[in-house]
């Protein structure tokens, strides 16, 4: 039995002798490994971003949305009326009040959305205008005040806390506190505070920067006196059992609504939901990318078959000096594995390089996990075995007398 070390050395020598051919044949594997591992690493990076963002929201934050959704099965969304998810007459102030009274709840705020454009003189901004209780700042600790203060709980005054985006658009570097702005057609608001730029680099976190907060009462007034609650945001005590609190809220709301027409999402739920979606997307795109590994593998098989024919005489010589069929088989199989493994290594190097470019040029941070490394190595070795087996078997079966005669 030819030992592994000398097989690998022979393989490397023959790859080196046929540099161009080897490079071309391995290209498919390189592209396949690069695309699969780049995609997966971007997905992993997104997951990390999202989880750091969601954890950045603080501990024990929960959101209630209208519409029923089974969080363990994203497909179930298809089974409920999609209109429910944007419905504003399911969640009520009574719900908010019930939650407020629970001992484990630290802060709770409804959120309604108001349509309209903000303007200050001839400058305009289009932030998401949210009607909230000031306790939203306690519930979502990621929201930090930059200047000024928050309005009080039950005020009817037309005041606004601007996010950094709107503040920038309307006031630039000026101090906006106590300045007047207009929302919609001539309703005048006084700026009482601004929120700080979110610290997280995640693109989702920057969504928070585009929100402008107004008192819920004022939002109701702007909506012709109708209370329209899209979300309820709350935070349980730091040492509360979130899943228990979630269950209690759920029971209370089902009792008052008569049915489960809402969904309570904890940070873990959001994380799981996002992870499930992302895994599905990554798997799908990776499957497509994996096709290039198959195409690359077929290329390698083709070139190995040619190589076996070209090296018929060498096979004859090796058999004459005592190589068994098994030794020839393993020699060619190892050669093909070495070729595809080199392809895999090149692919991983490219993945690192592309990852650095993506990090530098976009807000995404690809994350190359050990799983990806193992997967890429297994993929390329697997391709080497699968596509090298037929040529290697053909080489091993050659008749030594005929092989030695081959010109």
């Amino acid at each position: 039995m030819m030992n592994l070390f000398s097989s690998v050395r022979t393989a490397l020598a023959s790859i080196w002798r046929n540099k161009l051919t080897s490079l071309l044949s391995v290209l498919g594997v390189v592209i396949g490994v690069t695309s699969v591992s780049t995609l997966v690493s971007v997905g992993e990076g997104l997951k990390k971003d999202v989880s750091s963002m969601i954890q950045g929201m603080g501990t024990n934050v929960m959101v209630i949305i209208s519409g029923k959704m089974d969080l363990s099965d994203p497909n179930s969304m298809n089974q409920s009326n999609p209109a429910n998810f944007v419905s504003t007459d399911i969640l009520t102030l009574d719900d908010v009040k019930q939650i407020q009274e629970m001992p484990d709840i630290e802060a709770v705020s409804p959120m309604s959305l108001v349509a309209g454009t903000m303007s200050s003189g001839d400058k305009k901004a289009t932030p998401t205008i949210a009607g909230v209780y000031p306790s939203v700042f306690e519930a979502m600790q990621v929201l930090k005040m930059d200047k000024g203060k928050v309005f009080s709980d039950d005020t009817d005054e037309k005041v606004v806390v601007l996010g950094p985006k709107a503040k920038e658009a309307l006031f630039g570097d000026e101090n906006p506190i106590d300045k007047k702005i207009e929302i919609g057609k001539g309703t005048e608001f006084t700026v009482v505070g601004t929120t700080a730029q979110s610290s997280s680099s995640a693109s989702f976190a920057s969504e928070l920067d585009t929100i402008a907060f107004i008192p819920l009462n004022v939002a109701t007034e702007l909506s012709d006196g109708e209370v329209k609650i899209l979300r309820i945001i709350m935070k349980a005590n730091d040492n509360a059992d979130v899943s228990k609190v979630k269950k209690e809220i759920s029971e209370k709301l089902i009792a008052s609504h008569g049915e489960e027409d809402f969904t309570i999402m904890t940070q873990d739920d959001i994380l799981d939901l996002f992870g499930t979606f992302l895994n599905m997307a990554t798997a799908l795109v990776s499957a497509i990318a994996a096709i290039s590994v198959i195409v690359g593998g077929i290329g390698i098989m083709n070139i190995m078959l040619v190589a076996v024919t070209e090296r018929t005489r060498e096979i004859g010589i090796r058999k004459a000096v005592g190589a068994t069929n098994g030794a020839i088989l393993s020699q060619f199989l190892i050669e093909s594995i070495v070729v595809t493994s080199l392809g895999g290594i090149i692919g991983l190097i490219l993945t690192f390089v592309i990852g650095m470019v993506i990090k530098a040029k976009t807000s995404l941070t690809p994350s190359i996990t050990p799983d990806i490394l193992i997967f890429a190595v297994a993929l390329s070795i697997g391709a080497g075995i699968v596509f090298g087996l037929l040529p290697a078997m053909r080489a091993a079966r050659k008749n030594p007398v005929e092989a030695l005669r081959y010109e």
Partner: protein
Amino acid sequence: MDGIIKLEKLSKIYHRGKESEVRAVKEASFNIGKGDFIAIVGRSGSGKSTLMNLLGLLDKPTSGKYILDGENVSKARDKKLAKLRLRKIGFVFQSFNLLPRMSVLSNVLLPTAYSHIPHRKKRALEIIKSVGLSKYARKRVDELSGGEKQRVAIARALINDPEIILADEPTGNLDVKTGREIMELLRNLTQHGHTVILVTHDLELTKDVDKVITIVDGKVK
């Protein structure tokens, strides 16, 4: 003298089509002793190449017995034949059959990839020296002359210290003077206990062998 090779009615029949069959070797029977210098002589097409392939265990006989070093190998399987070739037989071919882009040393070491030989590199260098190629050990074989290549082939045949050296027209591609040197080298091997079997059509070469086996139309005379 002990027999190293004993053939009993060894035949090889090739089927070409259903009707006609070609008997390349017909019931060959002879003995070869240890350390003999034997020539198998015949014209081209006489069956001497087939006989050599049978003796060298590259091909399997259709019928008859081949006793190699006391062991009947006529029905041995591929794996067994490869092992026997590795240990007991060294080949020297007319067209050298070296791996052209590899060094002299690598070519000589080739059989050791399939066996465990202690101090294989040292041994290879000694053998290369004994065939007069010390200076060329690191050179690629395609940079060598025909005579030098044949010396490399002989060195390769010797690396596993086989009982039998099978030389198929070893001087066929060489000029007369170089051919004589190679013959001298082969002759010397018998003095070290190797059995050398020379396969040739050149009667000139048979002058200094111990025994000549002539083959005509597949039959040993």
